[in-house]
């Protein structure tokens, strides 16, 4: 196992984050603070409690999930796309490092950034409202699992993309709409019955709802199904990455 190789990629990616701290950390934190102000304080003050918690409190897990899903995908996709774009990928492809090790390096770095940002948002939100976490272990587990899964998904997007526009394609047109419609800002139970049924097709509903469960103990969906669905998605992503490296798809000519 080329552990130093994995570490080299991991450290390189993490140093990129700290080099661009305003973009990597300050930007998502500022966005979250704005969501709190707009949806929490301005609009939220007129909304009654949801599932027994104030709207501001209800918002926190959804906002964290919204951010980490987007950050995981964008960090991992950019992480592998940029070496392809700049030509520095030659170094990784000619090094004695296996495809799995390369994936570990990039995905662990992207997931670490997401977990870090998620925790920073959690701490930031503590300035706005008192936080309750009923199941801290599960909260952390969900945070890590979702970050890893979506970082892997982002890694695939980064390999598939052959221009900057394509990197934004899936996050903008699929992931963000699904996240907004997945109960980040509302409970699925608040929707008319027809839209509730439609919402259950959206996989993000399960992620947000189960994450919210770890905070307040209430969920729109079965938490076990949510975990199984996430692991299933993770397995699909792993399978796809293995195929990419086996065939050299979009990497080797």
């Amino acid at each position, binding site marked *: 196992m080329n552990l*130093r*190789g994995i570490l080299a990629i991991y450290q390189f990616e993490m140093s990129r984050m700290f080099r661009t701290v305003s973009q990597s950390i300050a930007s998502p934190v500022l966005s979250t603070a704005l969501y709190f102000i707009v949806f929490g304080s301005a609009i939220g003050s007129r909304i009654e409690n949801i599932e027994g918690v104030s709207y501001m409190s209800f918002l926190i897990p959804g906002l964290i999930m919204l951010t980490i899903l987007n950050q995981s995908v964008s960090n991992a996709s950019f992480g592998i796309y940029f070496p392809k774009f700049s030509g520095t990928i030659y170094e990784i492809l000619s*090094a*004695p490092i296996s495809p799995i090790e390369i994936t570990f390096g990039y995905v662990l770095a992207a997931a670490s950034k997401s977990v870090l940002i998620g925790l920073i948002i959690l701490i930031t939100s503590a300035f706005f409202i008192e936080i309750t976490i009923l199941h801290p272990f599960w909260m952390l587990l969900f945070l890590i699992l979702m970050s890893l899964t979506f970082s892997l998904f982002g890694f695939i997007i980064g390999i598939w993309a052959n221009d900057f526009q394509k990197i934004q394609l899936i996050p903008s047109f699929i992931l963000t709409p699904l996240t907004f419609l997945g109960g980040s800002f509302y409970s699925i139970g608040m929707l008319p019955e027809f839209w509730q049924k439609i919402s259950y097709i959206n996989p993000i509903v399960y992620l947000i709802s189960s994450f919210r469960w770890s905070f307040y103990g209430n969920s729109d969906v079965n938490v076990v199904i949510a975990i199984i669905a996430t692991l299933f998605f993770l397995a699909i992503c792993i399978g796809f990455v293995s195929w990419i490296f086996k065939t050299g798809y979009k990497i080797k000519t």
Partner: protein
Amino acid sequence: MIAIKIKNLHKSYENGLKALKKINLSVKRGEIFALLGPNGAGKSTLINIICGISKKTSGQVTIFGKDNILDYKFTRSKIGLVPQEIATDSFEKVINTLKFSRGLFNKSPSEKYLNFILKSLNLVSKKNNQIRTLSGGMKRRVMIAKALSHEPKILFLDEPTAGVDVNLRKTLWNFLNRLKKNGVTIFLTTHYIEEAENIADRIGIINNGEIIITEDKKKLIEKLGEKKIIITTNSSHNNIDNIIKKYHLKKNKNKLSYIYNSKKDADLSASLLSDLVKSSIKIDDIEIEKSNLEEIFLNMVEK
């Protein structure tokens, strides 16, 4: 000991382009091998396949006896690559990019060794500079330093001195000779015939994806080299026109030039001089020019 062995290597692209056709090649350990060829001949494709960046269509590449796909961790650990294009993370510091390269090859960070490499390539003063602040020549040196950061046994340089000034080119040649003395095998592609002539032990010529010839540099020049005798004479002797006709000499003012193959036609050159003497043609000067690698190269690729 054979460092690189290539057997029946083929590479075709999806659009039908045959980039490499039945390449067979061996490079000995500690040898400097230069591959010459025009643009698009297949030089970079060959290097990329050996190093694992491109996929082959068929054939086999072995590095110190191990297959470069089946035992890729072993083979790649022995190889350092300097690609043709300068590709670095512009915002990274020089020392950090070297540590990154070394790490990829599963080597612990060794400040002592990396400092040695930086010193050898005159980069010590730039150690903590961001790469984007360096000149083109300096960036090229960083690329070489990165390739050497993990102490490779074989160094591939794809047109290492393209766009580099004469001083740096000579510094690099000296450096490559030092590496060779330390047992490093060097495989370089170049457009500069002078480069191959100066540092290579053996030369290969590739054209349209096929290796036309591989030969010891001196032997290649000897084997294929032509010589030119330039005779300066102010004589207006009657026999001079007969001699020009007999030996197909070219006349330019008072200079007669005779081009011949040093191997095949050595007798004819002696006979020419003898005829000139016998005809009492006064010779003011004789110059002999050996053809250089550039002429050989052009002759071969134009055939």
